[in-house]
Structures are given as structure tokens and as C-alpha cells.
């Protein structure tokens, strides 16, 4: 068969979101690939320049539907840095709990998508079933399932309700058991492992050159996590480990994410313990001035997909002069040509599934 350009996306089942991967296919073998993004561009950064600071938080939720908590967190963090506000311990641990719930549900969303990418609908439904419990936790914490709108500049929206700790620990306990069923479906299945092993390999050096972050980077042996190496929100006071895998293939990225979910459970449990020790009346939110002093600031944190960063230029008014978003997937997707080069067409969903695409934050 002659070579042909195969357009995968934007309405293609493999592309989770609106993006296109143009693939030069020689029969089944991929010779070249061109990622095309920008279908979901909404002018997010420009929109922010016309809004007072607090009103950007719900918009930051919309950057990524499954990582809304971390995106509004990083926005609040950058404004807090501009205002030089120190958070209270209770706020920090509440944010940790919310972030880790967000991380687990985002990874479960990824696992579900991974299941359908590999053709196994059972994993999809089981992972979404587990995710539903974490979304229920979101509802109990802040009243909404996906667009949480929970962090505030200088705190969080509300303290956790009295029943939240009990429910949270129950869900985590249940999840730690139920995840083994899904692991049995994926890791113990020779088919899944042989689909993932050895495809989409990226070396440490290439990962550094492309600027990959997050589980994609840790999947190829780079031992770096913003939560540990540039700690924020008292992550350094919790006892947990960074999941790193040396292989750099799709299976390595898969294992990193599974391990991260289990580590997140640990973090939630410890953060809940710490919250228990803090007095219940500790402030969770401080009053912040409307206007942010002029200056440039940036804040970063560990998103479920990588390192998300916001860069703020403020001019002393009540709206940002410029708010730049560094999206992890925008960078990671640039490596897609490298990842899919030379593999078969059947491998593309498996490889790009482990990147965990989210187009809201990519196109902004």
C-alpha cells in the first residue's frame, strides 16, 4: 500500500477532545505525524484581563474539566504570591485534600479512557464507577462535581462539612480495595501489558528536550515532582513517595499513574489526620485586598497531567495585566510525533492515551 495521510481527529474516537493527529501511514506503520491543536481556543488569557481577580477562579476551573481543582489552585497561588499572603495550616491541608481528590478522579478518568482506547469497556465503566465516589466527595466539599470553584485567593471557599472526613476516609478505603480489581484487569492481562510494553518509548534526554512534565516525564525515569521538590501547601510535611518508572514506554507511564493514585490515597489519609489535629475553628480564608500590587509573579504546582504554571503581570489595578498559562499538555503533545514515530496505527490510541490529553487547557 502506498503511503497516505490519515487524519485522526478532531471527531475521532481516539482523540479525547478536539485535536487532530495527522498520521503518515505506510500500511499500518506510522512514518510521520503532525499534531494539530487549536480547535478549542477560547481566548482564555485575554478574557482574564477584563475581569477582577476573584472572578477568574471559576474560569480557571474551566481550563480542564477533570483537573479543575488544581487549575483554580494554581491561579489562587499566583495571586497569593503577588499579594504575599501566607495561608493557614488548615487551608493548606484542605487544599491538599482537594487537590489529591482531584488527582485521583482525573487519573481515574484517564484510566477509563485508557480502557476504551485499548478496547476494554469494563475498565472504562469500573474506573468511572470509582471516580463517581470522588466526585461525590467534591459535591460534599464544595457543592459541585467537576467545576469545583473551591480555592479562593487567600483560602478556600468553605471549611469542610462535619461529615466530610468520615466520608473521605471511607471512599479512600473503598478505593484502595477496588483499584486492585482494575489493576487485575490491566496489569494481569497479558493482552494489555503486551499492548503497552515497549511502545511510545521516550528517553530521559528527549523528555528533557521536549520539556515533558508530570507522569509522562516520571515514566521515563526523571525523579522530579513539584510537590516534593518545590513544596507548597505543606506537602513536605507529609510522608509519601514520588512514583518513578525507568522504562519510558506507555506501560511505564501507566504504572506511574496507578502508583500516583495510591500515593494520593496516602496523602489524603495523612492530611486528614493533620486536619484532625488542628483546631476546628482555624481560619480557612483571609480577606484580601481588591487590588494587586504591580509586579510579575509565577506559581507552579503538580497538576494530574504535569506541571501547571501561571505567570501573572499585575499593574496595581483589580484586574491582571497579563495572565499566562503554561499548560502541561500543550508541551506534552508536542512530543507526540516522537512518540508515535514508527509504531503501528493500533498503538496510537495506547500511546496518546497515556499522555492523558485535555484540550481545554491546551488551547485555552
Amino acid at each position, binding site marked *: 500500500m502506498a503511503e497516505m495521510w490519515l487524519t485522526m481527529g478532531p471527531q475521532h*474516537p481516539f482523540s479525547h477532545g478536539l485535536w487532530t493527529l495527522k498520521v503518515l501511514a505506510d500500511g499500518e506503520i506510522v512514518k510521520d505525524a503532525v499534531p494539530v491543536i487549536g480547535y478549542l481556543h477560547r481566548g482564555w488569557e485575554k478574557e482574564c484581563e477584563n475581569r477582577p481577580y476573584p472572578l477568574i477562579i471559576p474560569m480557571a476551573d474551566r481550563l480542564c474539566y477533570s483537573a479543575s481543582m488544581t487549575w483554580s489552585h494554581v491561579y489562587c497561588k499566583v495571586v497569593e504570591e503577588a499579594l504575599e499572603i501566607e495561608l493557614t495550616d488548615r487551608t493548606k491541608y484542605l487544599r491538599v485534600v482537594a487537590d489529591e481528590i482531584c488527582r485521583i478522579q482525573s487519573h481515574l478518568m484517564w484510566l477509563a479512557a485508557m480502557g476504551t482506547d485499548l478496547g*476494554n469497556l469494563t475498565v472504562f465503566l469500573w474506573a468511572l464507577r470509582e471516580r463517581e465516589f470522588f466526585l461525590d466527595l467534591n459535591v460534599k466539599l464544595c457543592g459541585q462535581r467537576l467545576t469545583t470553584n473551591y480555592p479562593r485567593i487567600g483560602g478556600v471557599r468553605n471549611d469542610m462539612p462535619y461529615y466530610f472526613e468520615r466520608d473521605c476516609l471511607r471512599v479512600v478505603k473503598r478505593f484502595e480495595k477496588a483499584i486492585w480489581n482494575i489493576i487485575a484487569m490491566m496489569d494481569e*492481562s497479558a493482552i494489555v501489558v503486551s499492548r503497552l510494553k515497549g511502545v511510545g518509548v521516550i528517553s530521559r534526554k528527549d523528555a528533557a528536550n521536549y520539556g515533558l512534565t508530570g507522569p509522562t516525564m516520571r515514566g521515563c525515569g526523571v525523579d522530579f515532582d513539584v510537590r516534593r521538590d518545590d513544596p507548597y501547601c505543606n506537602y513536605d510535611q507529609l510522608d509519601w513517595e514520588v512514583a518513578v518508572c525507568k522504562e519510558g514506554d506507555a506501560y511505564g507511564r501507566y504504572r506511574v499513574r496507578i502508583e500516583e493514585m495510591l500515593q494520593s490515597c496516602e496523602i489524603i489519609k495523612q492530611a486528614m489526620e493533620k486536619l484532625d489535629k488542628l483546631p476546628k475553628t482555624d481560619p480557612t480564608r483571609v480577606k484580601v485586598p481588591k487590588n494587586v500590587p504591580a509586579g510579575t509573579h509565577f506559581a507552579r504546582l503538580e497538576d494530574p497531567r504535569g506541571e501547571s504554571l501561571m505567570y501573572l503581570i499585575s499593574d496595581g489595578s483589580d484586574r491582571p495585566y497579563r495572565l499566562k498559562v503554561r499548560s502541561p499538555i500543550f508541551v506534552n503533545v508536542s512530543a507526540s510525533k516522537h512518540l508515535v514515530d514508527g509504531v503501528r496505527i493500533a498503538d496510537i490510541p495506547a500511546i496518546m492515551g497515556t499522555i492523558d490529553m485535555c484540550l481545554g487547557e491546551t488551547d485555552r
Partner: protein
Amino acid sequence: MPYDSILNWIVFKDPMVNPFYNVYNLPYDIGFKLWEILGGAIAWLINLIFPGNGASKFLVSQEVTGILALVLMVVVIFAVAFVINLTMIWEERKVLGRMMDRRATRVGPLGYLQNLADGLKTFLKENITPSKADKKGYMWALSIVIGTSVLIACMIPLSDRWFIADYGAGLLIIFGLFAIAPFMILVAGWAQNNKYALLGGMRAAAQMISYEVPMLIVFASVTLMAKSFNINDIVAAQVGMWFIVPQILGFIVFMVAAVAEAERIPFDLPEAEAELVEGWQTEYSGMKWGLIMLGDYFRGYVACALGVIMFLGGWMIPFTSWNAIPEIVFLLKVFLIFFVFAWIRAAHARVRTDQILWLGWKVLLPLSVINLLIVLALKIGGMV
């Protein structure tokens, strides 16, 4: 003769007294009696209006009854195959629903009528033919894929009295027709003028050819053991011992190959929806797609039925000669095998193109040859 009562026209003659069938055949019997009732009633009505005409007597004459009984028999056999097929789809959906922790079918008692509702829905969809498609190839390939699938499903006997014809070639012709579809899938993939469909068609061809070979070798070893291609003979040869006992290797190889032939997960590469939108079915819309799905399940039914006939003793109940309704026994075995198919579908992911070919040529082919050697050794040793 007065011919005034309807009972004078419907007399329920012996179905064996006819020029077409000389062995007892249950669907033929049903068709015969159906025509007795239907034709007799029509003849009686005509005779009421025009007393003493020749058309009424012609309708109930032996030859006409025989011919129309054949037609009705075909209808009965197709209807039963269709109902079996619907039941299997229902079974699969229920099993998948249970395994995936979700509700499955909801329409009708126990959700049984969901398939009809889905069929109605696909029927109401717009029927689109791509303007750049090769119209003849597009329609003919589809017709042949569906046609052969339905044909072999109708040719599967449910018991020694429920068959469409009892002939020597038996399984051979079923296997022959079973193998036509992949080539037509290739044609369909080409004719749709769609890159996904083309890739799907190529995958179908590569996959089916590689799985045809071990399947036929296993089939050869089974026929070698039974000394016949005839289905009745193959089942009769398993009275003492099912062929699954000496040929467990062959059974496994056959089942894996059958899953691949029926294009089901984990071997549904030609319609891998994650990478090729719907594979070779991408441009088929509306009821065309519905019929393709139906045809797929007909092929799944045939694959299960062949497994039952060749390895699980067909319609026999083990350790007893009592068998009141052999059709039910046969269907229960078919549904059991199909349960395993659905189970595999729930448990496993899709394999890759190179892996499926690797499995076909490097694992299943040697295993099937070993199976053949075992049968040969048994034959030479005089064990069977």
C-alpha cells in the same frame, strides 16, 4: 364428496408421504402442517365462493403442499435462527452489563425486546451512501457478507431432525461459506473510498486468512476422527466420548480462531473503534449497519454452533440416551459457549495487528498441527 366443512380441506396428512423429503424433518413437518392449515383454509374459502372449482383442489394436492411446505420450512428455519440470534445478542448484552456493573437491556420483559427497539431505531436512521463510493462494490460486498452469514446460520442443524438438508458435504460447505465474508469485507473496505474502511478491510483480510488455516486443520482432525463431513455422523461419532476430551488442544485453537473469525473482542481489529473509527463499517449507515451487526452475530452463532457440533457432542446429553428435545440441549450448549465469548469480551482488551498475526501463525497453527498429530496417533493406535 360434499367439501362443505373446513375439516374436509385440512386433513393433516402424513408429512412423510411427499415427493421431496424422505427423512423426518421437524421444520418440514411444521411447514407442512402450516400449509395444511393455511392452504386448506384458503381452498375452503375459495370453494365456498366458487363451489366445485379446480383451484381449491390444486392448492391441497400433494405436490403443491410439498413445495409450499418447503417454502414455509425455510421461513421457519430462518425465523428460529433469527430468534436464536436475538437471544444471543440479548444474552451478551445482559452478561456484559452484569460484568461491567451497569444496567444492560431495559425494553420488554427482562429487556428481551431491546434488540427490536434498537433494530427499529437503526431502521429509522437515514440511509446514506457516500457519493464517491464505488456503488456496486459498496452494496454487493455488504449483501454478500450479510447473505452468507444468514445462510450459514440457517444451515446449522439444531438436531438430527431439525436441518435444512442432510448432505454429505455437511460442515465443509459451512466452512466454505464462512470464509467468503473476509474477502467481501476487503471489497467493502475498498469500495467505501474511506481510509479507515480501507485499513479495516486490509486487517480483516490479513486476520481472517491467518485464522482460516488453523481452523481448517482442526476441522480436518475432527472429520478425520469422525470419518465423515456429515454433521449427523460427526455428532453420532461423539456418543461415547465428546471430541473435546482427546482434542482439547483443538478445541482451544478452534475457539480462539472462531472468536477471530466472528470479529469479536479481543480480535475485533477490522472494526477497532479506538483507532479506525468503525473499521470497515465506517461508511455504512442506518439499517445497513444494523444488518452488518446482525450478520456479525449470525457469524458468532455459527462459530459457537460449530464448536458445539465438533467438540461438545452436538445435541447429545452425556451419559444418557434419553433426549426428548435435542434442539434445546443444542441451544443451551451454544448459549454456554456464547457466554464464554461475551465473558472474554468483557475481560479483555483488543490485541494489536502484529500480535494477532503472531498468535495465528506462530501459536495456533503449530498447536492445530499437534492436535492433528494426536488424532493421527490415536487413529493409528486404533484408540478411536
